């Protein structure tokens, strides 16, 4: 979806400030949230894309106002309530008053299997990232849509993020695509520069 998280190429956020001595967590609740997340994902029943989807589908103003771990907390709560594991009332009271249903049947702990179909693209092929406005979770950022690049590598299978965001697993071919900076940003971009990004097959179409 075209959310506030899709930041590549935006202006106005200010300078990059590198803090050499920051703590791992800035508050106890951040550590609690991180440990909950790692514990939940250790079950192998949830996809990272489900976490991402529930972060991205928030009101853009809320997303931008939140800290990193706050986004995790919001998303985790959405994930477990969506799966029926915990109710919003329980989250408010802190007391369990329902039995949790079984965890989702899916398995995300195994490595992606190669898709059985033949890859559509070969190394050196010119491809266009599809111009589209998906309302589902996607890993095709806006700044590459409609732009032409060259296939540099074929990785094998990767779960399609649009489905993984819903907890459904289906592998597609994953390619590394090189885009010249000028193709993405215009003639003022540095002529020696490029952006490399990984795109699954359904994000791509042949380019002349």
């Amino acid at each position, binding site marked *: 979806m075209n959310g506030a*998280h*899709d*930041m*590549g190429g*935006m*202006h106005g*956020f200010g*300078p*990059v*400030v*590198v*803090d050499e001595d*920051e703590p*791992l967590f800035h*508050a106890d*609740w*951040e550590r*609690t*949230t*991180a*440990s*909950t997340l*790692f*514990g*939940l994902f*250790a*079950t192998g029943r949830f996809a*990272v894309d489900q976490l*991402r989807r529930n*972060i991205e589908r928030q009101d853009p103003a809320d997303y*931008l106002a939140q800290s*990193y771990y*706050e986004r995790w*907390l919001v998303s985790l*709560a959405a994930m*477990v309530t969506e799966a029926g*594991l*915990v109710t919003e009332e*329980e*989250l408010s009271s*802190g007391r*369990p008053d329902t039995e*949790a249903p079984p*965890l989702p049947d899916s398995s995300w702990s195994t*490595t992606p299997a190669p898709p059985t179909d033949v890859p559509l693209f070969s190394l050196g092929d010119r491809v266009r990232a599809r111009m589209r406005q998906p309302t589902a979770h996607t*890993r095709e*950022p806006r700044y590459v849509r409609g732009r032409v690049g060259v296939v540099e590598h074929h*990785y094998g299978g*990767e779960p399609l993020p649009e489905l993984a965001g819903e907890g459904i697993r289906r592998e597609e071919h994953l390619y*590394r695509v090189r885009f010249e900076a000028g193709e*993405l*940003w215009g003639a003022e971009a*540095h002529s*020696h*520069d*490029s*952006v*490399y*990004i*990984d795109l699954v097959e359904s994000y791509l179409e042949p380019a002349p």
Partner: protein
Amino acid sequence: MDESHEHDHSDVPDELALRAQALQSLLVEKGIVAEASIDAVVEAYEHRIGPHLGAAVVARAWVEPDFKAALLEDGAAAVAAIVQGRVAHRLVVLENTDELHNLVVCTLCSCYPIGLLGLPPVWYKSAPYRSRAVLEPREVLAEVGTEVDDDVEVRVWDSNSEVRYLVLPQRPSGTEGWTEERLAELVGRNAMIGVERARGPEEATMS
């Protein structure tokens, strides 16, 4: 309800803390998440997993040409020889040279090789870095003190898939004959993301 409540922003962290604790307690009490697994991963990031692991990989690549070749060929397989535990299903190592500077960003969230670098720093997750690294990498690099000559190619890697990217920085001159352990001390996390270079021998910690 107390009218002043919604204006009292000091309440906000407490609300988060309560909700974070409620979420964790509920998942454990309902048997969804094993209590033993709750702290294990976070403790690993606190005590065992951090940029020193990536630095050891870089230092080995600097002194052993065969390891470097293997690392560039298949990062995940090569790293498994010196780092315990799963680092990434796919790891691509990007070598910086006199002609090429690689820089890693995740414009959509915060992906990077946490198994080698630990949890990502705030600046890597921040809107300024995520928005600008793909659009104006040279300006971002200059801002953090890394000048890249005009004739050097800059490649930005947007880490949007489950593939993980690690930059192999250039070995600083004046380190001939150094041991791997000493070399590793020159390699900071930011150099393995590509925003900085490895430290020179004059910046080495006097230990």
